[in-house]
């Protein structure tokens, strides 16, 4: 997290806000609710009390404006900058402006006003931007379900560094605040791993790391900052070299990516892979380039799927232990890269040679993450 130079903050715990005008994008009552909820995000974890007034000058004046609106920070039309807010101080300090050229909503269409406002009020209370992609104070907009939204640990530590914690909330920092997965956590486990046209994508919770053979470092993003339609916490993924598609599985649904674009007509039912009825979730999947088969892992068993014939091969399922001796009973994720197979299980990754049918190395799960 970051704060403004001099750790600018309000020197009082009771603040006021006033909504000077309303966006025509949403019913006025919905705007009021979104703004109120957005302040509540911060008052829940601090001693601050923030109340609405309907006339006069409030500490935090809220405006919907377009283009050059007289504060030396003009907006830029649809897209680009969505809003901005000023650090705590008298006068314009705390004031929050939304770009009326955007479309604000209560849902996932356009830009969710609650999410944008909660971020901007972080600034209005004294927070700068965070480079933690899971933090609310990350500068790039990324839709999350407002119903399940919660501040990240990073956000909470930031705001509490300015105002301390909420004396009425027993344990601080809020114990269940989500932490962004750390690539260098020795205990890191993964949800899914796949290649994508020479890159590798490693999924964890609502994030993924993107590793390119041309870049030394690995980039971390929220899944929804690339694909708002995709779910978090995916189960498995593999790249079909035949079809130049990446399949992503969650529950009994499957999505397809063509490059970085979501393929039309998805999600589809996983039943299209011909798995036995009753299988509503898979653990991992990998594409075996030698055979052109897709290996699908479920519990301590695995299936071989023939993409050309669109069906499961005869004689399956087989036990993972018999097919891949030495990698243990169950896998979290699997990927083939440069002719070797990699099986992820908890904090360990097994490098496996399909020809010699044996484990070559046992490495850390974060081996590819450049720690």
């Amino acid at each position, binding site marked *: 997290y970051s704060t403004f130079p001099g750790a600018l903050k309000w020197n009082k715990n009771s603040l006021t806000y006033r909504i000077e005008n309303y966006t025509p994008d949403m019913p006025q009552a919905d705007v009021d609710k979104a703004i109120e909820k957005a302040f509540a995000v911060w008052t829940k974890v601090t001693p601050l009390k923030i109340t609405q007034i309907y006339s006069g000058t409030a500490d935090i004046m809220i405006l919907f404006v377009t283009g050059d609106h007289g504060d030396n920070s003009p907006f830029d039309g649809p897209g680009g900058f969505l809003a901005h807010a000023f650090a705590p101080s008298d006068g314009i300090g705390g004031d929050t402006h939304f770009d009326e050229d955007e479309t604000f909503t209560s849902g996932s269409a356009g830009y969710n006003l609650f999410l944008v406002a909660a971020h901007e009020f972080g600034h209005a209370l004294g927070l700068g931007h965070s480079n933690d992609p899971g933090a609310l104070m990350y500068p790039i907009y990324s839709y999350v379900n407002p119903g399940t939204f919660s501040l990240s640990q990073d956000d909470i530590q930031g705001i509490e560094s300015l105002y301390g914690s909420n004396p009425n909330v027993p344990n601080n920092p809020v114990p269940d605040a989500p932490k962004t997965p750390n690539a260098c956590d020795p205990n890191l486990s993964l949800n899914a791993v796949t290649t994508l046209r020479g890159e590798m994508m490693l999924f964890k919770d609502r994030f993924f790391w993107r590793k390119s053979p041309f870049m030394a470092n690995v980039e*971390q993003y929220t899944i929804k900052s690339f694909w708002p339609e995709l779910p978090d916490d995916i189960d498995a993924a593999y790249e079909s070299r035949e079809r130049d598609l990446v399949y992503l599985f969650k529950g009994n649904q499957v999505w397809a990516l063509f490059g970085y674009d979501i393929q039309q007509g998805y999600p589809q039912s996983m039943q299209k892979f011909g798995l036995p009825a009753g299988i509503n979730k898979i653990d991992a999947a990998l594409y075996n380039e030698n055979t052109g088969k897709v290996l699908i892992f479920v519990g301590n068993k695995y299936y071989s799927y023939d993409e050309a014939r669109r069906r499961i091969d005869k004689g399956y399922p087989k036990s993972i232990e018999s097919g891949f001796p030495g990698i243990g009973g169950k896998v979290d994720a699997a990927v083939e890269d440069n002719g070797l197979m990699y099986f992820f299980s908890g904090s360990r990754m097994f490098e496996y040679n399909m020809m010699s049918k044996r484990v070559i190395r046992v490495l850390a799960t974060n081996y590819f993450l450049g720690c």
Partner: protein
Amino acid sequence: AYAVPILRDNTEEENTEFAQEYLQKLYNLTSSSGPNFRRRSNELTEKLKEMQKFFGLQVTGTLDSNTLEVMKKSRCGVPDVAH
């Protein structure tokens, strides 16, 4: 024969202008015009590196496609570095 000026790809020009404006607003790049081309070019490289570092991108100092992709994402208009 005379050298016909090779018109740089229009898009490249636009992308460079876009990036300069982005860095001016969010990373304190001083104005992109002025007499000292080398100094301006160095500053642009440094500010690009600063932005790439903030977003965990490959720190190249050049306007690669990844960097441009991040610059084009919808975001908050408050600078990433303290003005």
